[in-house]
């Protein structure tokens, strides 16, 4: 016994060794690096992180129907990259392990115009992967693009965080292991705004829908129909129009002749601007209440607040949330300082999606994609511009609040950008469907 105290035995050595290894594993940073170093190359790893910098490919619409919203998104990503590289306090509040860069590497990015077309976006990202060894892809202001990039991400084993994407399919039937979404979507939009409009307009109403003819439009309309049916609301017409339709007159005549009480306009981007303006010119908005289930950045200034006054909308973020959330104030201040206007929700989503990726990488301690994915899936609660949020591991959808706003009258606006009044901040947990309800099967890590 006395001998064993004086000289360490083989058992003591093993106990100490395993204890030390276990301790390092608990600390979260070391083990994945060791594991990753032993892995065969995957996607752009390790080539994409071999230098002093890492590259992000951004495919965003700078032309076409969604160009205005795309430019706003791009500014959000640009601010995020700047904050990542400088180790800005706002970024550190969302991603506490961030110092400068991501894992000490400078973040660089390239931008391509997707025109909200899936083919253009996929080609651009493929080029970023091949030529720049992108470790992360982002982009989309159209869910058709998000779904296409999801598939590219899974095939190429390169991570993808969506830009704006409102379709249930993005983290539903078209979800992938390599894709993640921060923003709200059809299901949560409908579940959040449904009770508000039923309370405001009563039960058993007749609804006309204007629906863009692709995955976003179909799933958002379906979610609204499903929710509102529980309050006895019925669909009297659903006008499905192609993206970028040059004129809505024939659709609006059908709406005008439908006898609807409420017009739910699911159109987006310039399509929403045009269809809303034309609805007013056809006298429809004098007879029907307008509801916007998926708020369109810059809609109010483009159509004029006389058309959005009193209109209910669901959104991801509105700049006056700076009065409620400290991080929102920091974000709005920083954005306004750099770009000269208050950010829309696309910019906020863009910023948050990069911050969440940085947090996942920093916690994984490696850019090795499967470890970063597992880090995303760990369910860590993050502080965001709308409070605490986290990624749901089963479908890679961020669990986050939905913001209900109502358009202000001219007389109520405190400044020229004060278009919406925040009515409610609806917690995300209760809005979401069960993880497998929309058919999500994430796929493999490798």
């Amino acid at each position, binding site marked *: 016994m006395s001998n064993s105290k004086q000289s360490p035995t083989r058992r003591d050595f093993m106990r100490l060794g395993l204890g030390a290894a276990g301790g390092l594993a608990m600390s979260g940073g070391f083990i994945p690096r060791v594991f990753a170093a032993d892995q065969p190359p995957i996607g752009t790893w390790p080539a994409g992180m071999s230098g002093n910098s890492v590259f992000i490919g951004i495919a965003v619409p700078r032309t076409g*129907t969604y*160009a205005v919203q795309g430019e706003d998104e791009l500014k959000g990503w640009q601010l995020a990259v700047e904050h990542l590289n400088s180790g800005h306090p706002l970024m550190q509040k969302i991603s506490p392990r961030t110092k400068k860069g991501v894992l000490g590497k400078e973040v660089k990015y390239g931008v391509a115009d997707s025109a909200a077309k899936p083919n253009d976006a996929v080609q651009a990202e493929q080029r970023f992967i091949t030529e720049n060894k992108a470790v992360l892809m982002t982009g989309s202001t159209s869910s058709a693009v998000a779904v296409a990039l999801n598939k590219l991400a899974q095939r190429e084993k390169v991570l993808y965080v969506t830009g704006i994407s409102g379709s249930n399919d993005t983290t539903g039937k078209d979800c992938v292991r390599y894709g993640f979404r921060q923003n709200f979507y059809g299901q949560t939009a409908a579940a959040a705004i449904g009770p508000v409009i039923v309370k405001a307009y009563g039960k058993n109403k007749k609804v006309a829908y204007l629906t863009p003819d692709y995955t976003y439009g179909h799933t958002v309309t379906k979610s609204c129909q499903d929710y509102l049916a529980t309050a006895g609301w019925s669909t009297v017409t659903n006008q499905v129009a192609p993206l970028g339709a040059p004129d809505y007159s*024939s659709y609006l005549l*059908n709406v005008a*002749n439908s006898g609807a009480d409420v017009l739910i306009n699911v159109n987006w981007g310039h399509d929403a601007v*045009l269809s809303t*303006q*034309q609805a007013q010119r056809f006298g429809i908005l004098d007879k029907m209440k307008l509801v916007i289930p998926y708020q369109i950045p810059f809609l109010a200034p*483009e159509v004029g607040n006389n058309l959005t006054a009193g209109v209910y909308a669901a959104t991801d973020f509105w700049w006056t949330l700076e009065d409620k959330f400290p991080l929102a104030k920091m974000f709005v201040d920083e954005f306004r300082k750099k770009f000269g206007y208050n950010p829309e929700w696309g910019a906020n989503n863009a910023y948050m999606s990069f911050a969440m990726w940085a947090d996942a990488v920093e916690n994984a301690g490696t850019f090795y994609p499967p470890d970063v994915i597992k880090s995303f899936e760990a369910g860590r609660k993050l502080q965001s511009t709308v409070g605490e949020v986290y990624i749901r591991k089963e479908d890679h959808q961020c669990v986050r609040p939905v913001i209900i706003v109502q358009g202000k009258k001219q007389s109520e606006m405190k400044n020229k950008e004060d278009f919406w009044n925040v009515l409610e901040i609806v917690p995300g947990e209760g809005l979401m469907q069960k993880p497998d309800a929309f058919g999500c099967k994430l796929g493999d890590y490798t």
Partner: protein
Amino acid sequence: MINWANFISQVFNGLALGALLALISSGLTIIYGTLGVLNLAHGAMFMLGGYAGFVAYQATGSYIVAVAAGSLALLVLGILMERVIIRHFYGRPHEDQLLVTFGLSICFVELVRFFFGSESRNVAPPGPLSGVVSLGFAIYPTYRVALMGIVAVALVVLFLVLYRTRLGMIVRAGIEDAVMVDSLGIDVYRVFMVVFGIGAMAAGFAGIVNAPVVSLTPEVGEAILVQTFVVVVIGGVGSFPGAVLGGLIAGEIISITSMINPGYAYVMLFAAMTLVLMLRPHGLLGTPGRE
């Protein structure tokens, strides 16, 4: 939404849509018929007419001045384009003509985006034409009703120029046989310049009179260009009456199909074009050999 009231509304709306398509298409078909140049910049010229008018409208607040500015600006631009660029491509393959006009359209769109941004711009209809009017079977925007009249007048003026003037006679002769016109001692290239200018002016005029209907964006001409080509193919390449007929048919197809199934409104337009190409390749009023 199939009922008589809606049907009559949609037929009427089809006429309104078709009239505008006819006006834009007439410019395209005159240029192609005379010069043999398929002008892919026609949609961008439609857009430029809208923006030129918008600038004038911002400066003066006058709809009339805006329409005049949009039309004249494109007349001048059309003549400049023809003199500086297009005339060098008369003898070159169609592929070259397509590429140069496509390139010009990209330049026009991006120049407008550079100066005006992607945000939509609005031109208000003149005071007496704002608001809605009850037609008995439908409530319809007053300006759209007036627009049918405006476009009808413009088409009649174009018709008179083409069919009742010496210039028009030369243009029509040029459409049939440009070499023969040239050999008769007529400066056919000067006629080409005028024709390109008139075609551009028709696009510019359509762009500005349509501005109060749609909000202006740099891409406003792109979607309309595709429809315009469909109209020209249906009506017959190079045929002015064909452009009018094709426009009205296209408007009615979009409108009436949307009543039955809105998702197929534009699909049916292309289906109709396919049918015409199969059964009558030179279009409904076109001349065989020009398809």
